[in-house]
């Protein structure tokens, strides 16, 4: 287990570090919202999911996409705006999708996919499918009306959906306490009839074991569940850098999370050779993905109007 865990966590961390490193070259001409520091949430929750389960996420979605086994080459190519990207250069970093891995999309409009996940769960229930849906979103998203409305409906219909709130303490530069009258997200969920639990995002084993229990409850038809995972974003809200100079948070606050980073603690449980082998594999995979993205073509002009509708419309305007 530790081997695979290290591999997954490391791959996401290193891939995003490479994105950050490549960013100043202007090859990636679009916004990137990095998950560096938050990888354990996606990896830990997805650990408890089955291959046919479904996830929905947000613009901060590289980690979720990769944790579900989304193709790294296609992700990097997408960031580069290339035809070989997972959305053919149409959606960019904020709209990754990998239906073959149950990754059903990510939205740049906060909160929107929560309701989409609920609808997906409803459809699965109607179609008597066994799979469940996990809906990932941030602490800020819980302030949108769609959060309340979605939880209510999910509870009403006892839908097989797991709500996962990645609480990194901030929405852009504004702390949760400056935005919410009550910080108890689980209490809010339970007020709608969705039992909730809060987990320390630095404790990968706690995430996995809690996710397993909770997923079992959802899968066995007990209705929706809510998980708050307390985590921390190390980099700026959007872009490759740190942002302590802005003054909305302190570097000390971040340091304590970095000191509790999951990655070295998982690494420490592997033997040296095993660890080195994984690291070499991951580096090779990442180098390959960036080379693939660099070498891939940009979309041709014909792509501009392709896929607005199923068939190319004879005339749109």
């Amino acid at each position: 287990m530790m081997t695979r865990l290290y591999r997954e966590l490391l791959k996401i961390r290193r891939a995003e570090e490479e994105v950050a490193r490549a960013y100043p070259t202007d090859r990636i001409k679009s916004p990137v919202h990095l998950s560096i520091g938050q990888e354990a949430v996606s990896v830990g929750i997805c650990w408890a999911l089955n291959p046919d389960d479904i996830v929905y996420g947000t613009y901060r979605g590289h980690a979720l996409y990769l944790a579900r086994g989304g193709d790294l080459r296609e992700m990097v190519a997408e960031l580069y705006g290339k035809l070989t990207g997972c959305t053919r250069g149409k959606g960019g970093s904020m709209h990754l999708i990998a239906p073959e891995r149950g990754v059903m999309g990510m939205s740049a409009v906060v909160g929107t996919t929560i309701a989409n996940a609920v609808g997906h769960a409803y459809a699965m229930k109607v179609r008597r499918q066994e799979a469940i849906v996990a809906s990932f979103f941030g602490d800020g998203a819980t302030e949108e009306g769609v959060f309340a409305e979605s939880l209510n409906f999910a509870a009403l219909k006892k839908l097989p959906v797991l709500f996962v709130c990645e609480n990194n303490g901030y929405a852009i530069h504004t702390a949760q306490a400056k935005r919410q009258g009550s910080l108890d997200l689980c209490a809010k969920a339970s007020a709608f009839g969705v039992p909730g639990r809060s987990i320390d995002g630095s404790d990968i084993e706690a995430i996995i074991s809690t996710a397993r229990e909770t997923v079992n409850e959802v899968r066995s038809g007990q209705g929706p569940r809510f998980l708050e995972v307390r985590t921390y974003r190390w980099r700026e809200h959007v872009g490759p850098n740190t942002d302590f100079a802005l003054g909305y948070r302190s570097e000390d606050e971040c340091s304590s999370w970095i000191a509790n980073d999951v990655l070295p603690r998982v690494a420490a449980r592997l033997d040296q050779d095993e660890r080195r082998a994984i690291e070499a594999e991951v580096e090779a995979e990442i180098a390959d993905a960036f080379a693939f993205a660099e070498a891939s073509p940009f979309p041709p002009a014909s792509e501009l109007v392709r896929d607005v509708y199923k068939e190319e419309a004879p005339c749109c305007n």
Partner: protein
Amino acid sequence: MLQLTTPTRTDECEKASGVCQHPGKSDAPALLAERTLSYVEAIREATAQEMARDASVVLFGLDVDDPKAIQGTTKGLVERFGPERVFGTPLSEDAMTGAAIGMALAGLRPIHVHIRMDFLLLAINQLVNVAAKTRYMYGGRASVPLVVRAMIGKSWGQGAQHSQGLHSYFMHVPGIKVAAPSTPHDAKGCLIAAIRDDDPVLFVDHRMCHFQTGPVPEAAYEVLPGKARITVPGDDITIVGISYMQTECLRAAHYLSDVGVRAEVIDPIWLAPLDIDTICDSVERTGRLLVVDTAWTNCGASAEIVARVAERLSGLRDLRLARFGFAPTTCPTSPTLEEMFYPNARTVATQARDLVEGRAMGWIPLERPDLKSIEFKGPF
């Protein structure tokens, strides 16, 4: 040499001739010696002056009080006016719009800011069903003096959900006014007019307009609803450029003048109410109209302007009318596709010349370095 009549755009003026003439027709005071401000500073100054003048003006929206302060447009305002009158909101556009309406009903003059116009879609119920309707459906017994500021994003892979120009949604609905100024001068004047207006106003500030600089008088003034401005006089074709497209149209006028086409460029400034008279007077002279929008053309502001001109002038003279805007597709992030998605000065020039000649000329001007669009790096 192309003559520009707008006094409000130093960068474009300098490009043209080094001489900016004041048309006298504009409501802008004369000005070569005026202070120069950026669009961002103009918005901030308008807000601050109105807040200082009128204690009922309040300002809020997601991130208006954060370190980046909506590209600086709200910088320093919380320090100056306090957190009761200036505050960041939760991520709750729908409820905060409804609350803004309630504040307005109670006598405040709220300014609600959205860093992307796309997020207005979460607020549209309150705006269309309540704000726009209130005065009429309550028989004139209540009013909603609300300003909604919303920014259109462009550049650096904004993509499907951070790039939309949805102003025509609101032009469609009686009871709400829409301003889309393109210069610092008009940004200040329109915002002040909007704040003082007793009806709801959508104030559209395009992200690319933020980089404009130009003369802005220090004292407060209003650029009132329903008055367009001729920014370049000409006889061959009328080009109406909406919001940021005004800047691209001014650049296009230079390309056109290089090949002997004298374009008349109009900035509508306000889209609702719309100064159709100024546009029609111009088209009556030129017989040709190209409307360029920072939005799709389908059912858009450009469609509305073309329709009104056609209704008024068809039968009276020969007309050639065309619209130009976003490609009829979702905004892609790939730079090669994004480039094709948006009109720019050169493609506007192509469209305009084809309209003048009445056929596709296969001409696209070589890019002049002095007429390049502003590019910027980074997400916002």
